[in-house]
């Protein structure tokens, strides 16, 4: 229903996908839906960019196209390429329908690095909107491109860009499970844990330097916290029974986990090193899948205390939980939106299908975003604009993303094996 794409975008995507699969046999991204109104932007190749092993503007254009809110205007055949504002022939870009234009240059430095400069030009006002210069190594070119895309996105949409963020997920190939971390566009995937036993529920520490997750390597679910800086890990929860569903407090000092040490599955709070365990919920039923509010004052969770699994909210200091979902008999896996005004969850609908649904705290009206039928584990991008989740295509586990308005859709799949359990990392604080 969103497939009315101009030919040049389709060609562009084709080339882009081809380059991805050649460059990396890892996550491959496919865009399956676009926003209703798209900002037309032309991205001229940076002058001197042809010398680079990785063309910066290709990555920038791929980022912006993937967001669904930009329409990439053809920039081919312009000669000479504009590198400075004085070089820009605005009538050419107006004729092509571009409202914004990216120009710039790449030049080698004496130290063997690259000097990358870009400017974002307003084609209609014939003025500069923003511009940056970077001195980077060859290995940093992709990261620089993501930063440029973030700067453009922020200037033109007013939202924070998330192209420089990372995601984590679990891959399964045969009996091999891997916890991987990759850039938000699927590149640069690194395995941070490999096991012949399942791994589930990875959760990012708010500063992006640690992951909490559940591993079955010792024949039962145990919660670990692992540093992405040095690879060291600690056992956060290994009590009698099952230990699972870790969630970080926004200050990164506390974890909410689900333990069965006292009987049924209940939510506990503890320090990230596993000390100072206190019980948060007190039911005789299942309480699981905790997730902290961005202000750290509440935890939303799944409970079947009312007879079927539904979403509830409880204050971190305890007290009586408040039921949040009433529609349907199976609502699970809640996650707060970054602004704290809404949450996303999975709802089982008619025919045993599972959809990604959002609901605001104000309206309490659920809004279904997907119809794939087998969707799981939703996770918000840190700007709240996209929701990444796990689904299946032809029996294979893949990741997919949908914009929070339901219009933009992407799929991220691997050449082989299953991908599942995504978690979108925090904003890169060094930006």
């Amino acid at each position, binding site marked *: 229903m969103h497939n009315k794409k101009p030919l040049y975008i389709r060609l562009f995507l084709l080339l882009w996908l081809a380059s991805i699969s050649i460059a990396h046999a890892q996550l491959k991204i496919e865009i399956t839906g676009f926003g209703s109104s798209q900002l037309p932007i032309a991205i001229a190749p940076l002058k001197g960019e042809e010398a680079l092993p990785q063309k910066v503007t290709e990555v920038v254009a791929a980022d912006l196209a993937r967001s669904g809110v930009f329409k990439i205007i053809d920039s081919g055949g312009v000669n000479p390429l504009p590198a400075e504002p004085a070089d820009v022939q605005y009538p050419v870009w107006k004729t092509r329908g571009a409202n914004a234009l990216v120009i710039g240059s790449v030049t080698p430095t004496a130290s063997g690095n690259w000097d990358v400069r870009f400017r974002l030009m307003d084609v209609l006002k014939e003025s500069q909107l923003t511009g940056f210069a970077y001195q980077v190594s060859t290995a940093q070119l992709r990261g620089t491109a993501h930063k440029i895309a973030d700067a453009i996105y922020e200037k033109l949409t007013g939202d924070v860009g998330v192209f420089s963020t990372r995601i984590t997920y679990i891959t399964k190939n045969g009996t091999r499970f891997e916890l991987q971390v990759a850039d938000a566009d699927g590149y640069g995937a690194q395995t941070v844990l490999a096991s012949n036993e399942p791994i589930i529920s990875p959760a990012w520490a708010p500063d992006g330097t640690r992951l909490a997750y559940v591993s079955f390597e010792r024949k*039962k679910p145990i919660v670990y916290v692992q540093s992405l800086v040095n690879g060291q890990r600690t056992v956060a929860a290994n009590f*009698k029974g099952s230990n*699972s569903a870790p969630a970080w407090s926004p200050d990164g000092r506390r974890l909410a986990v689900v333990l*069965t040490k006292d009987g049924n599955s209940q939510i506990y709070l503890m320090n990230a090193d596993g000390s100072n365990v206190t019980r948060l919920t007190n039911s005789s039923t299942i309480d*699981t899948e905790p997730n902290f509010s961005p202000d750290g004052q509440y935890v939303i969770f799944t409970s079947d205390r009312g007879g079927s699994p539904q979403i509830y909210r409880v204050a971190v200091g305890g007290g009586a939980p408040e039921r949040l979902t009433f529609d349907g008999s199976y609502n699970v896996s809640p996650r707060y939106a970054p602004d704290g005004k809404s949450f996303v969850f*999975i709802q089982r609908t008619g025919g045993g299908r599972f959809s990604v649904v959002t609901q605001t705290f104000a309206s309490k009206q659920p809004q279904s975003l997907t119809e794939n039928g087998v969707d799981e584990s939703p996770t918000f991008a840190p700007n709240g604009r996209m929701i990444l989740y796990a689904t299946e295509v032809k029996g294979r586990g893949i990741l997919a993303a949908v914009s929070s308005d339901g219009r933009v859709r992407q799929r991220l799949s691997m050449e082989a094996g299953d991908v599942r359990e995504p978690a979108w990392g925090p904003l890169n604080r060094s930006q």
Partner: protein
Amino acid sequence: MKNVLLTSALIAVLAGCASTDTQKPADVTEAKPVAPSVEPTPQEKPPTVAVPPKSTVTGDPLDPYNPASMLNKQRSVYFDYDSTAVKDEYKPLVTAHARYLTSNRAQKIVIEGNTDERGSREYNIALGQRRADSVKQMMTLLGVQEGQIETISFGEEKPRAKGHDESAFSENRRSDIRYAGDKP
């Protein structure tokens, strides 16, 4: 269904145990008639098909580490969809393990709960936990001590049946009893 024979045999053995010295369950060396004394449940196959000649003369050593024993062979309790109740047909199995554990206080078990693949992975961990706990609860009511049992859950993560149809789902809605001395 899959356990007609063994369940029948189990019921017979239990009937035998109940009338003999329960403190020495492993000492049942006298031959026990297995199937003939027990009526099969109506929907099951006729007993004449199910009874291997050997078991009619050897009895059950009632030793979880002896491959010939039902305590070794029957370790799985199956559940209905979205249910954590131990069905009647598995109560003899749970009872037999409970009897062994009450007679062997040093023995410890882990009950591992499992679910089918539908729904949230973490909610399924909790659901599998509840399935393990319901088996535990029955055992503790029969006198097994808390300290002898740990219940854990694999949720949907370690399916025994790899398919994606109802037969695979029903195979995976299961609690398994693992003895501490079992070989890995």
